[in-house]
């Protein structure tokens, strides 16, 4: 055990101290922040409010329109304070308005138009809206602007005029204000998971979470698989293996290397995770201000433990494949090619997402959630859809982690015999024979 920890510590410290590790750990969040921050900064550049004159020939619309626009702006600001996150840029900063009513005052429409056009060219005004006398029945209005390329303002304005008109039409039809409010009350639709213990589990968000876990697993395997492979080959390339094997069992060495590299991976993922959460806090604020659902799905605590366990299982199952390949080859390049077909199984296991989520308790779903190579994704899907009995989850984990040990055991034997045999590359049948050889 002490020797195992010695191997783990060497592996961990040597890798974490390496320049490559430090550079890649710092660089990723830096690049990410650049991608996120720069557009956000550009968007948040404050623009002066748009000055719009309203020629209200109906005589009833101006106050309603003002109200509708004002509500928009208020709403976005109250939401910002509610999230309590970092200050987010006001989303509608590009479409804030300053309204001004233009009274007809016996002038003809053409005169008013000419007057307003003049003010626009003098940069005294950014645009004007003309609501003709029959506007409430025809629904036809006119918007002149100095900047027809402005994409957002006309849309915001249109929606505000729309609401204002609707409101005014109801008032005209003598609908009282309480009824008006009730008429526009939005509906809520919630997907609720059936079953005894389930409360308001949000299935869509759960799927997204499982998919995210699967994806991070895939990335972690792609990134660190090669490193595990390199670590296993290291002693062959530096010809240290024989010295080590006179002191430690090959299995101890292999497990030590696997665990050491995995701790490095965990360190890096944690650093990235923290950096990511900082961005996410910022991002959640932005999304929330746009009315996107950003709450974490409300799942039983045990599910989060399962997520962690199956993530580890997936990582180790495929990580050990790289170790096994490493035990057979003499250079890392050879190894990368040999491991690729096996990693394809992981990609395929992603497609199981759909059949398993449609029938989580079918025999098919049961079996794929027991096979170690497909279990991590399949079992997670089953857990968030129809949580299978505990014994199935435990069995799947037991099979998976035993497979990890068996693969490592085989890798250790192949490694040792391979070293004794003039250090040549093993063919698959040879590898099988070596693993069985005493």
């Amino acid at each position, binding site marked *: 055990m*002490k020797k195992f920890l010695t191997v783990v510590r060497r592996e961990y410290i040597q890798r974490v101290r390496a320049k490559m590790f430090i550079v890649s750990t710092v660089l990723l969040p830096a690049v990410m922040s650049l991608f996120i921050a720069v557009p956000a900064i550009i968007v948040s550049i404050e623009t002066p409010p748009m000055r719009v004159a309203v020629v209200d020939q109906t005589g009833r619309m101006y106050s309603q329109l003002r109200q509708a626009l004002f509500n928009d702006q208020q709403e976005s600001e109250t939401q910002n304070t509610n999230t309590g996150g970092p200050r987010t840029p006001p989303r509608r900063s590009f479409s804030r308005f300053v309204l001004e009513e233009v009274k007809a005052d016996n002038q003809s429409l053409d005169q008013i138009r000419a007057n307003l056009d003049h003010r626009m060219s003098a940069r005294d005004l950014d645009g004007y809206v003309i609501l003709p006398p029959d506007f409430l029945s025809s629904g036809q209005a006119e918007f002149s602007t100095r900047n027809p390329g402005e994409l957002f303002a006309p849309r915001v304005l249109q929606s505000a005029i729309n609401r204002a008109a609707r409101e005014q039409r109801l008032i005209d039809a003598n609908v009282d204000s309480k009824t008006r409010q009730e008429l526009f009350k939005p509906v809520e639709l919630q997907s609720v998971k059936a079953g005894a213990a389930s409360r308001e589990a949000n299935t869509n968000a759960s799927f997204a979470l499982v998919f995210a876990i699967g994806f991070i697993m895939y990335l972690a395997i792609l990134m660190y698989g090669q490193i595990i492979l390199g670590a296993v080959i290291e002693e062959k390339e*530096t010809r240290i293996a*024989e*010295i080590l*094997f006179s002191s430690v069992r090959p299995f101890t060495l292999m497990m030590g290397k696997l665990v050491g590299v995995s701790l490095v991976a965990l360190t890096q993922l944690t650093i990235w995770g923290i950096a990511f959460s900082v961005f996410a806090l910022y991002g959640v604020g932005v999304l929330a201000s746009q009315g996107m659902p950003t709450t974490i799905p409300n799942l039983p605590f045990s599910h989060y433990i399962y997520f962690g366990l199956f993530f580890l299982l997936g990582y180790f199952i495929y990580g050990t494949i790289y170790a096994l390949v490493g035990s057979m080859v003499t250079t890392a390049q050879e190894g990368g090619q040999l491991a690729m077909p096996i990693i394809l199984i992981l990609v395929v296991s992603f497609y199981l997402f759909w059949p398993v989520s449609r029938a989580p308790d079918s025999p098919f779903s049961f079996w794929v959630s027991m096979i170690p190579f497909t279990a991590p994704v399949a079992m997670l899907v089953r857990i968030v859809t129809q949580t299978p009995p505990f014994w199935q989850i435990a069995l799947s984990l037991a099979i998976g982690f035993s497979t990890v040990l068996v693969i490592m055991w085989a890798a250790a034997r192949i490694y040792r015999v391979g070293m004794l045999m003039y250090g040549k590359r093993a063919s698959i049948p040879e590898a099988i024979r070596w693993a069985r050889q005493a």
Partner: protein
Amino acid sequence: MAANETTVKVDGVTKSFGEFTAVTELSLNARAGRVFGLIGPNGAGKTTTIRMIVNITAPDSGTILLFGRRIDPSLQDRIGYLPEERGLYKKMRVADQLRFFAEIKNMRGKQVETKIDEWLARVKLSDWKQKRSMELSKGMQQKIQFITAVIHDPDILILDEPFSGLDPVNVELMKEIVLDLKRAGKTIIFSTHQMEVAEKICDDICLLNRSRKVFEGSLREIKSSFGRNSVAVRCEGGDGVLDDPALVSKLVRHVDEDQALLAPGADAQTLLKRLLDAGAVIGKFEMVEPSLNDIFITKVTEPA
């Protein structure tokens, strides 16, 4: 360890890899406070024998006892092994590297640091303690590799071709260290195919050839059993005499003298007389012990 006590006992060991038999029915005994030379040509089975002693591979039959016990992981920690195939972690600093090799042998605590400093001073590499091993010259790396085998103060030290690639000054330095360890009562197994090196350092010899033991015993005994049947000659003229197969079975010409191995039944007096009769001017005529190399070649080429 009491001197002369048998610490490594190999008894009737056979090991084969598939069709190929690497070691056949080998028995040998190495003792504390002595250097045991395991010699033989390439492919004789030296490395396989050593690997079985250090428990990297197990014999098919026969037993190996260290300190009277079968090998187990705790005994492994009392062995220091410098294999022929050896290297260092390229990017690790020398001190970290030595600490790792000490810890992997279950050595802990402050004594590790003391030992690192002691040994680096001993091989004159103290200034390189914080350098990465890839910055070291090949000779320096070899000395560090040697330290990895001895840092945990093993009772049994197994060295496989330890001096290959070292310059004469460093060979001398390492030889001194090995002899010091021997005087400290360690059992040293020294494997080589360089006979001149073995001759200078070994107390006991075991000669392996084609997976079998050819002979085993102290270097003294072996040499005296071969008798003084070799003559170092320096002379001018009378060349034909030395080429007579009835007198000389083997002639090795060096720059300043020739070495003649007497044919069976011939004696040195006859040879000297024949040379004088042939008109040779003798500069040197001396009976010498056969070199280990001569014994080796004689034994290996002898029909079984």
